[in-house]
């Protein structure tokens, strides 16, 4: 698993060149190819009564995207990177999936994408839809708070959340493959408050000891690969504690794994990755359990 090709999806309103530049630290881990994708939403150029298909509008939107991509590409070309671009019309998620396949990308970078309230109630957000359907790691890039600025290098200090599932193993492999780009890894496991509450004091201590041991073992794996890694055991709601851990340890990015689930299962049983993708202010990297 190596990250050599990255798909950078931009609608220009939410993901700019500064976000792309902040990811250039990945070159130390083998990144050498960036593919841009801009999707023009169909409703912007769709048939209207009296005017028909807005061909002129489509041409204008394509031209705007082309000018921006050329400007971004020039900087990357001059640094010796390979750059490609796709400008498409249609629905964002299917286009992302199709370009990711065509270009054989290793990582998808996108901003949080929302739908109308009613549509989100039934189908979830576009971000959730993408996370459900892709087999590629997805970096959901959020501009930090209200400042509109991005961190200089999101890979500098990672908060790696592990739940000891199969997807955790995939996340671990993925992070190890980014050697060179990452400075420090804060590894966190969150114990369920409910689960611990049902145990005797002795049993609770045993669970705590076992999990600390597992965290130490993971740190040893990282240490062998010359990563600076620290273990952290938290207790409470996974989503809340991951955010809290990220804040306490000044993480620049959160990394979690995800399993495939239906829209409804996800909606009612909840998914930490999907929930963080909707709320987290930090960039969030989600690695699917069936990553390819």
């Amino acid at each position: 698993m190596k990250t050599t090709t990255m798909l950078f999806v931009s609608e220009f309103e939410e993901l700019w060149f500064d976000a792309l530049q902040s990811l250039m630290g990945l070159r130390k881990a083998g990144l050498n190819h960036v593919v841009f994708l801009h999707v023009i939403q169909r409703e912007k150029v769709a048939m209207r009564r009296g005017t028909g298909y807005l061909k002129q509008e489509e041409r204008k939107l394509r031209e705007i995207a082309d000018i921006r991509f050329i400007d971004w590409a020039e900087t990357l070309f001059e640094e010796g990177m390979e750059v490609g671009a796709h400008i498409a019309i249609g629905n964002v998620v299917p286009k992302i999936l199709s370009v990711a396949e065509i270009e054989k990308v290793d990582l998808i970078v996108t901003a949080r994408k929302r739908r109308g309230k009613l549509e989100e109630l039934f189908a979830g957000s576009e971000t959730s839809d993408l996370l459900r359907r892709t087999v590629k790691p997805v970096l959901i890039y959020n501009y930090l708070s209200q400042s509109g600025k991005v961190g200089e290098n999101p890979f500098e200090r990672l908060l790696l959340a592990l739940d000891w599932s199969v997807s955790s193993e995939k996340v671990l492999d993925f992070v190890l493959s980014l050697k060179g780009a990452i400075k420090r890894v804060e590894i966190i496991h969150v114990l369920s408050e409910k689960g611990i509450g049902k145990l005797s004091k002795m049993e609770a201590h045993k669970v705590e000891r076992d999990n600390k041991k597992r965290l130490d073992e993971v740190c040893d794996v990282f240490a062998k690969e010359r990563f600076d890694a620290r273990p952290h055991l938290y207790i409470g709601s996974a989503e809340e504690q991951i955010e809290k851990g990220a804040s306490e340890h000044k993480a620049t990015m959160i990394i979690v794994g995800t399993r495939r689930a239906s829209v409804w299962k996800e909606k009612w049983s909840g998914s930490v990755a999907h929930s963080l993708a909707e709320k987290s202010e930090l960039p969030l990297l989600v690695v699917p359990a069936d990553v390819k």
Partner: protein
Amino acid sequence: MAKKVLNVEDDPDIRTFVTTVLEENGYIPIMAKDGEEGTKKVKQEKPDLIILDILMPKESGIKMYHELKRDPSHKDIPVVMLSGVSKRTFLRSQVALTEFGDETVPEPEAYLEKPVEAEDLAEILKKILG
């Protein structure tokens, strides 16, 4: 015999424009919509000249040009760059590629920045192909 010109370009409007210019000037147009297809067509069709865009899906014109000029069997095919990317960037990118251990490559026969007039393109082609 009419000479074959390969146009590697992802924009269908520009492909149509170049095809028209080529046909009107007595050349045989061959089309490819990205660098990957362009490389295949070079091997299959052995064109007399290549008109090459830069920012495209799958493989950029920068990579295709660099590989073409390092390939002994194709390095002598003249190339006209036709792109929105500036010549300065193109030349710098070729230098940047040599920093990774690649050999230096010569400059293209001509560099045209989009948009280009039909007469200018025809004149360049005539100058190179005769």
